[in-house]
């Protein structure tokens, strides 16, 4: 993984020192809360319902075991003993004190981490395919480009006060988009051009929130070396022309929609023509320097183990078999597997991980995965490099930690925002519903029968839980002071991107889990075979059969 040099290190240390000064000026009253707010936001510090929340950047989700141990230390010393993995591959701490935050930033800097631009109207942490570098279907590792974007965007002087926040995602697996690139301000797909050269397909203006859009392709093929100048052109057009009169219309998706993708593209290309082939773009030497950090290393030459994996899935140990089936993905290197560690144990808040779990996982990463792990946008962890031979041993260790739930990609592998329990914006709780769903669908055989289905839940229309792109989406709303839940079906974040549609009237809090249950039961009745995923069945038969089932005994 990328290692800071003295320049990178100096920048994060100077940032921590700068923020210490800003906190001092705030505490002394020299600056107002209004003036302080955008400063703390650019260090990931939000004011939530009960306390400050600090969001720590995990660039493209990649962590070393040393960094994870530091996060455990921070959770224990400055928080209440846990952290929350976010859908943007970051980690959030829910209870830090303002006066402690400069020290937390110092601790983070000591392990090459920071909270720079994890909130605020600036370029946020760049996310990537959680299987980057190890996926079989990847044509190129996107992480060197993510790191180059990280450095280009860190304290970019022109783009620190954009009309609104700005999120970039990158994938190098054109066949299977695991990074939801069509739902970002900019999505980048590494693709092969006509003569075999690699480049980026550039997608702009996707997003969720109160006005969801699937992003539009504005360039089919951008030679890789032009990435930074092209990004600068997009950001420059947005910074000048994005709306600033209404924060709900300030995202780039609204500008792209208002101008039309063709006109937006024209503006970007005109700007780009003036800045391409200038100093902005990365040199071959710099690209080679950064790529060197991501060169696969230390793999042993092992025999192919695909047939062994198949046997383990059907083996005598049912629990292990289910876990291997659902949580182990084939690796590009023979003899290795990609392990998803589910942070979605039944009855627990999705994505919450305790300090002791973090430390234990760090030790396991050292033993089983070359000291590296990945935070996924599904709010799970991935060990990218586990030998097939050691899967059973790793699984036994994870069982002890309550981190071996065999539900990756299944209904209870939910994405869920913090909701009304933590968030000042939320209209409804989401974590208790997630916990109830987890308890309701706790039979792994039943979950397995249902197969691949995604459930995503948000406690308000800001859609932090990505409900628009869940096969099943749940949106918490407030109706005359009571919590209600809209159910939507048919969303998908990937190459077959689609937005879910509301099924009908909202459900009361005590009804929503049953409604999901009836939708799943109906799916099992109407699917053509166990190979037909829920989303495919939904697309084939439409909403009507599910609507009928969901509202069978609904009291509106």
């Amino acid at each position, binding site marked *: 993984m990328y290692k800071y*040099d003295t*320049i990178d290190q*100096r*920048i994060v240390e*100077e*940032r921590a020192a*700068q923020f210490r*000064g*800003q906190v001092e000026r705030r505490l002394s009253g*020299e*600056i107002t809360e209004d*003036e302080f707010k*955008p*400063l703390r936001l650019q260090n990931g510090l939000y004011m939530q319902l009960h306390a400050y929340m600090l969001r720590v950047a995990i660039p493209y989700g990649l962590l070393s075991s040393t960094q994870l141990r530091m996060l455990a230390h921070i959770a224990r010393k400055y928080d209440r003993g846990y952290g929350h993995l976010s859908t943007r591959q970051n980690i959030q701490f829910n209870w830090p004190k303002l006066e402690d935050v400069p020290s937390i930033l110092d601790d983070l800097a000591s392990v090459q981490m920071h909270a720079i631009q994890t909130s605020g*109207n600036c370029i946020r942490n760049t996310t990537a395919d959680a299987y980057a570098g190890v996926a079989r279907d990847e044509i190129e590792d996107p992480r060197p480009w993510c790191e180059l974007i990280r*450095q*280009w965007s*860190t*304290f*970019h*002087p*022109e*783009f*620190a*006060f*954009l*009309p609104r926040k700005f999120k970039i995602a990158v994938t190098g697996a054109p066949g299977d988009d695991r990074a939801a690139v069509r739902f970002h301000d900019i999505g980048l797909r590494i693709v092969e051009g006509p003569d075999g050269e690699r480049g980026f397909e550039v997608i702009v203006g996707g997003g969720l929130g109160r006005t969801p859009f699937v992003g539009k392709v504005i360039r089919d093929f951008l030679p890789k070396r032009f990435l930074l100048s092209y990004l600068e052109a997009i950001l*420059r057009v947005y*910074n*000048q022309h994005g709306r*600033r009169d209404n924060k709900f219309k300030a995202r780039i998706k609204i500008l792209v929609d208002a101008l039309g993708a063709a006109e937006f593209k024209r503006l970007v290309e005109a700007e780009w023509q*003036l800045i391409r082939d*200038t*100093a*902005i773009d*990365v*040199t071959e*030497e*710099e690209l080679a*320097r950064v790529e060197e950090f991501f060169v696969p290393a230390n793999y042993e030459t092992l025999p192919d183990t695909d047939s062994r994996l198949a046997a383990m899935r059907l083996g005598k140990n049912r629990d292990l078999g289910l876990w291997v089936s659902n949580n182990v993905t084939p690796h590009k290197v023979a003899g290795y597997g990609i392990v998803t560690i589910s942070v979605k144990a039944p009855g627990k808040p999705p994505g919450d991980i305790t300090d002791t779990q973090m430390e234990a996982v760090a030790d396991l990463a050292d033993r089983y995965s070359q000291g590296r792990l990945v935070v996924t946008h599904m709010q799970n962890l991935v060990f990218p490099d586990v030998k097939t031979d050691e899967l059973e041993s790793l699984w036994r260790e994870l069982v002890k930690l309550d981190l071996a739930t065999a539900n990756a990609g299944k209904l209870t592998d939910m994405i869920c925002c913090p909701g009304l329990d933590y968030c000042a914006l939320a209209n409804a709780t989401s974590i208790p519903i997630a916990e109830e769903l987890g308890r309701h669908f706790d039979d792994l055989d039943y979950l397995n029968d249902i197969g691949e289905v995604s459930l995503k839940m948000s406690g308000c229309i800001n859609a932090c839980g990505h409900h628009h792109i869940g096969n099943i989406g749940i949106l918490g709303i407030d109706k005359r002071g009571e919590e209600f839940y809209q159910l939507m079906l048919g969303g998908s974040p990937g190459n077959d991107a689609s937005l879910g549609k509301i099924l009908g009237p909202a459900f009361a809090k005590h009804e929503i889990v049953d409604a999901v249950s009836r939708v799943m039961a109906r799916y099992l009745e109407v699917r053509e075979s166990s190979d037909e995923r829920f989303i495919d069945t939904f697309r084939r038969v439409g909403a009507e059969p599910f609507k009928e089932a969901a509202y069978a005994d609904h009291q509106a």
Partner: protein
Amino acid sequence: MQIIRHREIVADTWLHLDDETPVPDAGDVTVSLERLRAEGEVLLARRGALGVRLRSDQLAHDVSDVLQDLDIICVEFPKFTDGRGYTTGRLLRDRYGYTKELRAVGHVLQDQLFYMARCGYDSFALAPGKNLERALDGFADFSVSYQAAADVRQPIFRRVSR
């Protein structure tokens, strides 16, 4: 009024005219872009230097044809969260080759000075009531930057061997 210019606290020597006040025969004045367009000949014929004030929605290309007549451009930041002026500064310097004084005015605060200086601003009229002496620290928040901008024309990887 005191301002920061070339990282020193100095008196503002410009007279900033609104659109109604008669133009004095001598002295250095700034006017709105609208007034410059309407009264350009008169303004250029008088003794004294001339400058223009841009609102945040008036972009660099709106003024690019008259740069040779101007000794100062003041760009307004109505709220410090309105970041259009950063692009305006960069384009005036990088694209249109403007070399005279470029001043940030309005809701200008210590914590934005570093970014503004990188985008080509060399003078700063801070928001009322701000401590200018302390604000000077803002230029030194960071000793190194990754990107090319109006101050340092090469990104880090073209400046140093990493």
